C-alpha cells in the first residue's frame, strides 16, 4: 500500500461506527503581518471511540493546532469538524474532553487535590463529590497520598501526572494530550507511557495524543497520524494491532520496528518537499 492509498482509504472511510472526532477537508490559515500561514491544509481524519491516536510530525506541522481545533481553542477557517456529532464549541460547553497541556499548568496556590477538583468546582459539583472524584483520579495516576502537597513539592513527572488526574476527574470520554511528556526525561517518560496505556486499557477512553517521539507514538497508539509542515497536512495514517495490554518489551519486536520505520519514512518524505 502506498502512502497515497492509505490517505485515500482513510478519507473514504464512512463517518462510521462511532466517530468521536470527524474532520473533513479542514483548513486553518493564520493571518500574520508576514502574510498568511497555512497551519492546516485540507485535513481529513476520523477518530473512533476507544482509539488511541497519535499525531506525529516536525514542529510547525500543525499537530498541536489540530488538537487545539478539536478542543475549540482555535477555530478552523474552512472545512467541517464535529465532536460526538456536534461542533467543537458545543462539545467544549458540554465538557466533552479533558485536555492535558505540554506543561502541567497547575495553579501554584492550590494543593494537588484542589488542583484536581478545580474543573469540578467550575462544574459546581458538591464538595463530597469533588473529593471523591479527586481521590479516584489521583489513584488512577498513582498519586494518592499527595493530596495535601503543593505543586512545587512534587517532581516534574508527578506534576504532569497530577495534571492528567485533573483532566480525568470529570470523566470525559475524550482525552486530548499535547506532548504531555515532552519535557520529561526518558525513564520517567517510559514509566508514564506504561501508566497511560494501562489507564487507556482500563477506562476505554478515546485519546488524541500529540508527540514528536517516534517510539512513543508507535508504542502508545492504535492509529498513528503522520503530519508534515508548510502547509500543515496529514501524509500518512498507520493502524497498529498491538494488544491493549502490551508492555515496553514490544519495542524490540519486528512489527514495532517496521511501523517505526514507516513513520520515519513518512516524516522524511514530508520534509523533502521543502528542503
Amino acid at each position, binding site marked *: 500500500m502506498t502512502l497515497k492509498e492509505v490517505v485515500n482509504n482513510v478519507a473514504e472511510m464512512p463517518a462510521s461506527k462511532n466517530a468521536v472526532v470527524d474532520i473533513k477537508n479542514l483548513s486553518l490559515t493564520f493571518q500574520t503581518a508576514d502574510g498568511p500561514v497555512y497551519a492546516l491544509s485540507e485535513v481529513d481524519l476520523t477518530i473512533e471511540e476507544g482509539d488511541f491516536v497519535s499525531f506525529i510530525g516536525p514542529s510547525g506541522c500543525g499537530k498541536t493546532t489540530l488538537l487545539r481545533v478539536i*478542543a*475549540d*481553542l482555535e477555530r478552523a477557517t474552512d472545512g467541517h469538524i464535529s465532536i460526538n456529532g456536534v461542533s467543537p464549541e458545543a462539545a*467544549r*460547553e458540554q*465538557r466533552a*474532553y*479533558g*485536555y492535558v*497541556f*505540554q*506543561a502541567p*499548568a497547575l*495553579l*501554584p*496556590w*492550590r*494543593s494537588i487535590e484542589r488542583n484536581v477538583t*478545580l*474543573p469540578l*468546582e*467550575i*462544574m459546581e459539583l458538591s464538595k463530597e463529590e469533588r473529593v471523591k472524584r479527586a481521590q479516584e483520579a489521583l489513584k488512577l495516576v498513582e498519586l494518592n497520598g499527595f493530596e495535601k502537597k*503543593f*505543586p*512545587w513539592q512534587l517532581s516534574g513527572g508527578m506534576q504532569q501526572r497530577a495534571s492528567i488526574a485533573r483532566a480525568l476527574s470529570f470523566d470525559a470520554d475524550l482525552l486530548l494530550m499535547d506532548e504531555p511528556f515532552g519535557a520529561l526525561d526518558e525513564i520517567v517518560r517510559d514509566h508514564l507511557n506504561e501508566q497511560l496505556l494501562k489507564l487507556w486499557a482500563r477506562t476505554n477512553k478515546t485519546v488524541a495524543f500529540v508527540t514528536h517521539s517516534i517510539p512513543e507514538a508507535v508504542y502508545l497508539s492504535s492509529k498513528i497520524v503522520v503530519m508534515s509542515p508548510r502547509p500543515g497536512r496529514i501524509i500518512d495514517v498507520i493502524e497498529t494491532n498491538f494488544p491493549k495490554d502490551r508492555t515496553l518489551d514490544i519495542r524490540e519486536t519486528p512489527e514495532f520496528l517496521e511501523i517505526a520505520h514507516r513513520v520515519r519514512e513518512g516524516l522524511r518524505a514530508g520534509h523533502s518537499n521543502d528542503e
Partner: protein
Amino acid sequence: MMSGQTGPVCVVLLALFVLWYVGAVFMNAPTQIDRYERADQAWTTGQLIEDTLAQDRPILPAPHQVAVEMYKTIFAIKITSKRSLVYHSWVTLSSTLLGFGIGTLLGVLLAVGIVHVMTLEKSLMPWVISSQTIPILAIAPMIIVVLGAIGIKGLVPKAVISTYLCFFPVTISMVKGLRSPQVIQLDLMRTYNASKWQTFWQLRLPSAMPYLFASLKVAIAISLVGAIVGELPTGAQAGLGARLLAGSYYGQTIQIWSALLTAAFVAALLVVIVGWIERRVLVRMGVKA
C-alpha cells in the same frame, strides 16, 4: 534571619547617629558663636559643642533632644492632651486608614474594570495616570475647600486626599496582576467552559495577590503622606501635619523633628503590618516559606 547581620546593621546605625551629631554641631555653631559674641562671653570648643547640642530652637536638633521631646509628648503626657503625639498620631492614622481602605477598594475596582472592559482601559487609564501628575500640594487645599463648602469637614476630606494618592499604585499593580495568568492557564479555564466570573475568582485574583501586596505597601505609606498633607491647609487643628505646621510657625524645630520621626515610625509600622499580612496570606497560598 538577622543573626549574621546584627553587627553590621548596628555599625551603620551608629555611623548615622555620629553623622547626625557632627551635622548638628556644625549647623548650630554659627548662631551659638554669634550668641557668645553678643554676650561678650569667652568660650572653648568643648563648651561650644555642648551648647550647640542643647539649644532651644536649633537649626538641626541633636538626636537626644528629639528623643527627649518624643518621650515627653508620647509617654509623659495623657494621650487625650492636645500636646500628646499619640493623640495627633491617632488623628492622622484614622484618616490614613480610612483613605487607604477606600483607595484600595477603588484601585481594585478600577483594575477589574480596566482588565475586563476594553472601553474602560481606553477611557479611564489616561485619567488614572494624569491624576498623579498634579502635585498633591496644589490639589489638597481645593479638596478641603470644595468639600468644606458642601459641609463635609474633619476626617473625610483628609481621607479623600489619601484615597487620591493611594488608589494609583493599586490600580497599576492590579491591572498587571490580573493580567499575569499565563496563556496556558487561561486556555485551561476555557477547556472547562469557565465563565468570566469563575476565571476571575479562581485564576486572575489569586494570580494578582503578590502584585496587590507589593502595591499595598506603597499605598499605605503614601496614604499617610496624604493625610499629613491634608492637615496642613486646615489651619493646624490636629494631627501630625498640624504639629509640623505649628512647629514651623514658631520655629520649634525640635517639635517638627519629633512629629516627623513619629510619622516615619507610624509609616514603618503600617508597612510592617501589611508585610506581615502578606506573608500570612502567601503562606496559606502555598508559597515556599
